[in-house]
């Protein structure tokens, strides 16, 4: 087990190192670093001064080491637009994104599990077929287009919900969030639903498959034979046993939600780190882009590392199989 963890840790460090290489050489070799790292309004003397200050006149290897040193101490340089450290900007925008991802995860569970139960318990009903067809659509519909249509329907035509921004936030238990105010809840509903769409479909399919498989297990038959009410059989015996794969998959999907929030945040003008990334890309604010990419890579590497280690702790076949690979 220890050897496995160490090997995975080394691998994680290697991946982060490789990504730093790709991002650094991508920005500095393929693109023109002067264009990318110096604000376009700078005059000639200012450009020369900045080139020296950034060390762009040094050999590329030395520059990379300098960059690594900065990354290691959390210094990605200052944003051209905001004039603040890039890392600080991203950390400021992170809570909004995490909040959105969490709410959409909860939505996926609240909507997906009951619908999946209906489709799994009565597969022949017309309603169940409708749910399954809708879940195929949920996978195929382009997220950004659905977002636009949600705005069109609920914000423009019906006027029920606001379409942009985060609304009022309040501080409760030391956490600032839109979840604590009515206005904020109204603002988060549409973007969270938009982001949850694929995961609702996923949960429906997982629940349905789980229900249909578990229904015929002996312990369910036994529970029925004991004369337990149907609500208890379904709500406790069945539910407990299908939740494990759903929780596992949703845990893995959380990282994907953070990545996909780029799209949703842009449509709904949600002030999270995804919108910050797109704004920075469009305004050529390179330090912020580099910082975002490195942080999200780090995030994913950590998620994968934790999942890998948890899996190997739970299922010995994983780490045994790894030995001969």
């Amino acid at each position, binding site marked *: 087990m220890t050897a496995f963890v160490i090997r995975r840790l080394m691998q994680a460090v290697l991946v982060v190192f490789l990504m730093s290489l790709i991002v650094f050489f991508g920005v500095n070799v393929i*693109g023109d670093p002067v264009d990318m790292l110096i604000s376009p309004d700078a005059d000639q003397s200012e450009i020369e001064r900045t080139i020296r200050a950034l060390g762009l006149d040094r050999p590329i290897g030395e520059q990379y080491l300098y960059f690594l040193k900065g990354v290691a101490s959390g210094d990605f340089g200052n944003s051209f637009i905001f004039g603040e450290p890039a890392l600080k900007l991203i950390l400021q925008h992170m809570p909004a994104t995490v909040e959105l991802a969490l709410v959409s995860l909860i939505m996926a569970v609240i909507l997906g599990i009951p619908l999946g139960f209906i489709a799994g318990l009565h597969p022949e009903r017309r309603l169940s077929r409708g749910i399954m067809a809708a879940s195929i659509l949920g996978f*195929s519909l382009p*997220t950004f*287009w659905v977002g636009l*249509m949600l705005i069109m329907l609920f914000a423009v035509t019906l006027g029920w919900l606001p379409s942009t921004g985060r609304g009022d936030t309040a501080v409760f238990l030391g956490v600032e969030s839109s979840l604590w105010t009515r206005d904020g809840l109204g603002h988060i509903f549409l973007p969270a639903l938009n982001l949850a769409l694929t995961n609702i479909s996923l949960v429906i399919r997982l629940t349905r498959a789980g229900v249909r498989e578990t229904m015929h297990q002996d312990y369910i038959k036994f529970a029925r034979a004991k004369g337990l009410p149907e609500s208890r059989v379904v709500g406790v015996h069945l539910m407990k046993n299908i939740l494990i794969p759903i929780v596992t998959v949703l845990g893995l999907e959380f990282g994907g939600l953070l*990545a996909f929030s780029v799209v949703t945040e842009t449509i709904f003008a949600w002030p999270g780190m995804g919108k910050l990334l797109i704004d920075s*890309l*469009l305004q050529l604010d390179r330090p912020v882009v580099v910082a975002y990419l490195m942080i999200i890579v780090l995030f994913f590497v950590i998620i994968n590392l934790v999942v890998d280690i948890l899996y190997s702790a739970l299922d010995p076949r994983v780490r045994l199989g790894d030995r001969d690979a």
Partner: protein
Amino acid sequence: MSGPAETRAETPFRRFWSEFRESRIAVAALVLFTAVVVLAVLAPWITPQNPYDLAQVDVLDGKLPPGSKAFAGYTMWLGSDGAGRDLYSAILYGIRISLTVGFAAGLIALMVGAAVGLVAAYAGGRADALIMRAVDIQLSFPAVLIALVLVAILGRGVDKIIIALVAAQWAYYARTVRATALVESAKEYVEAARCLALSHSRIVFRHVLPNCLAPLIVIGTVQTASAIALESTLSFLGVGLRQTEPSLGVLISNGSEYMMSGRYWISFFPGLALLFMIVSINLVGDQLRDVLNPRLKR
């Protein structure tokens, strides 16, 4: 079809087709997709205007709702966009670009992925372990994230988007081909080919590869659909194709600024076209998976 089918000799293709058409939905999806491709190819001859020829576009026609008459006399059944382009024409031209990018990216990713997967399976040992570890690591990141990293580095434009899509997708092909090729390489015909002292490249590409085609085709359809979706997403975000390469994603993006004033059609119809394309490819892919999967053979 002429004559009764029973009198014909059974060829692999006919057997495949008779199994494929068992699903009416899949056949309908295939017809829909073919129709979309034909419309897109014929776009210059069947649209009332070339939306990118400035001489044919009139700004006064801008933002007209569906069914309005254009200044030039024809009816704009799907309305017009902010610059006065007929949306029906713009969508057909947009599909051409979306399909070209999707197919090109899908095909290149397929070739790269298949080559890597074959090499991994055939070489085995350390090379295999190294390649598959790289594939695993890449697959642990969402494709949209990898594509975003690359467009951030490379910039915008058709060629760059294709590179980004290929980089985001090759690993799926590599993993599939490697799994199939591993099974195939252990079979007797490969052993026979080795005994004949055929060259490695001949064995890999002429003997093993043809037997890995079925899963490649299945995954190719699904991945092409997701390449089209990914390109439109990037273009919508403004980091994909440029305004001069107006794919469906660019059209939707242009329309989104008119959303708030209730002019839904500028974004709605291009999105619908995109949806039809993606759903029909996915449904065809689903049926292909059922037909081509040897484990489900009756």
